[in-house]
């Protein structure tokens, strides 16, 4: 057999995809969304707390944040999910019953928070000290200055990296599988993998990938659009066809220089 044909059939077999599609749409997609969205919200809030604690002047906030981040970022996600899912299972059983989602979401959020915390910290620390001075000179407390002036600027600077983490979270949501899932609890990737294991054909897995793309690409572009809107400056007046341009912060972005070939390509 022609190896290219085999490859094609392995990954792009339409019949397998069609077969998996209904399950993916009615079961996998909602479940992935439930897991990812809840964990994204919780993880971002926790991440912000970690970031602020991580740059606090109080050692008793800085150190715990550091240790938390090191551990939850360093351990394999599967191990963390197992530790929390199995370790807290007796407790979870009492509160939520045998559904693994609550503990799974908790574990995913705790992991995401460690990553998102570092991203937000990077953004916040990159804001010039003069901004904090400006805010504090008006009479804002450190917390208010952070909340109203520093954090909004810092977070905007790292939005693309934050999107990274949301996308990773969408995909990590497949790891709740380690906690045991009913057929109706499977998310996109798991359904794809079930088909792959049962048929030996990877097309359903690729279909799961396409679903991921359908979630992540609009997310990326929505955030990029917001990012561009928030970015101050001439953008509003620029030919929309050339959106972005060299969109550095601030307004006086240099115009394209068609006359100078040496400046057209980065190197």
């Amino acid at each position, binding site marked *: 057999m022609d190896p290219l044909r085999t490859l094609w059939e392995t990954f792009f077999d339409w019949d397998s995809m069609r077969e998996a599609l209904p399950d993916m749409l009615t079961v996998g997609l909602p479940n992935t969304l439930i897991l990812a969205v809840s964990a994204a919200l919780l993880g971002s809030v926790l991440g912000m707390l970690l970031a602020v604690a991580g740059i606090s002047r109080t050692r008793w906030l800085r150190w715990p944040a550091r240790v938390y981040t090191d551990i939850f970022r360093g351990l394999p996600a599967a191990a963390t999910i197992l530790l929390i899912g199995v370790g807290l299972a007796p407790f979870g059983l009492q509160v939520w019953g045998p559904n693994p989602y609550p503990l799974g979401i908790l574990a995913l959020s705790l992991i995401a928070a460690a990553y998102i915390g570092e991203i937000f910290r990077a953004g916040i620390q990159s804001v010039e000290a003069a901004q904090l001075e400006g805010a*504090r*000179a*008006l*009479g804002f407390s450190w917390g208010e200055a952070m909340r109203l002036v520093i954090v909004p600027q810092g977070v*905007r600077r790292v939005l693309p990296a934050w999107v990274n983490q949301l996308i990773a979270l969408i995909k990590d949501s497949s790891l709740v599988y380690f906690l045991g899932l009913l057929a109706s609890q499977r998310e996109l990737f798991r359904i794809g993998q079930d088909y792959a294991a049962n048929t030996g054909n990877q097309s359903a897995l690729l279909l799961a990938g396409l679903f991921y793309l359908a979630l992540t690409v609009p997310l990326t572009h929505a955030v990029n659009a917001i990012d561009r809107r928030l970015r*101050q*400056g001439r953008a509003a007046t620029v030919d929309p066809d050339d959106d972005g341009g060299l969109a550095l912060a601030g307004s006086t972005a240099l115009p394209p220089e068609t006359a100078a070939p040496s400046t057209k390509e980065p190197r």
Partner: protein
Amino acid sequence: MSTATATSVSLAVRDVHLAFGANKVLRGADLDVARGGTACVIGPSGSGKSTLLRTINRLIEPDAGDVLLDGRSVLRDDPDALRQRVGMVFQQFNLFPHMTVLRNVTLALRRLKKLGEDEAAQVAREQLELVGLAGKADSRPAQLSGGQQQRVAIARALALRPEVMLFDEATSALDPELVKGVLGVMADLAAAGMTMVVVTHEMGFARKVADTVAFMDRGVVLEAGEPAAVFERPEHPRLRQFLSQVL
């Protein structure tokens, strides 16, 4: 500036010391400003003028010495409350680049003075009008010229009606017309009882606005007094040399 400030306070800086590492920037600086008075601080670049202003509202804590408002040390109080009484315009303006000009001015009005949205906007627009920037309320700082940014910074600080104002080179980016305008605003403020410390390198400006002129060099105030005295009859040789360079 139609509304007078509630109270009028005197300001005194007493033997303030501050070092950045090994670099002793303030080495016993003293300054006295009467209630509702205006002190101009002049002196060579790097002599510690900006640093002195920062210690007054405790953006930097002095290593030693004291700052008194109406005779009461500010070092024991809550610095946030202090800074609501002591406004500041920075040499580099320190505007918030992610907010419009209007929001730069209303932010503290709403969050600290607890004004409503509309009320804050009205106060802010009046203040912007006063510095000739009513038309730029919806621009971002990066879309403004240097002088426009400086005026936004002035408006932002004045909108809060502080008892003491610290201006760091408040007219450095302003043309003569605007300097005249700011001068007028400041005269009104002084008349209304606001106490002011103005760092400037424009001697003409200092002569016009100051009740007291203080000459700083290498972290100490070498000479202070009435403008006429300081400018016409400087005593310290360093000050004489400095003034001899004025164009």
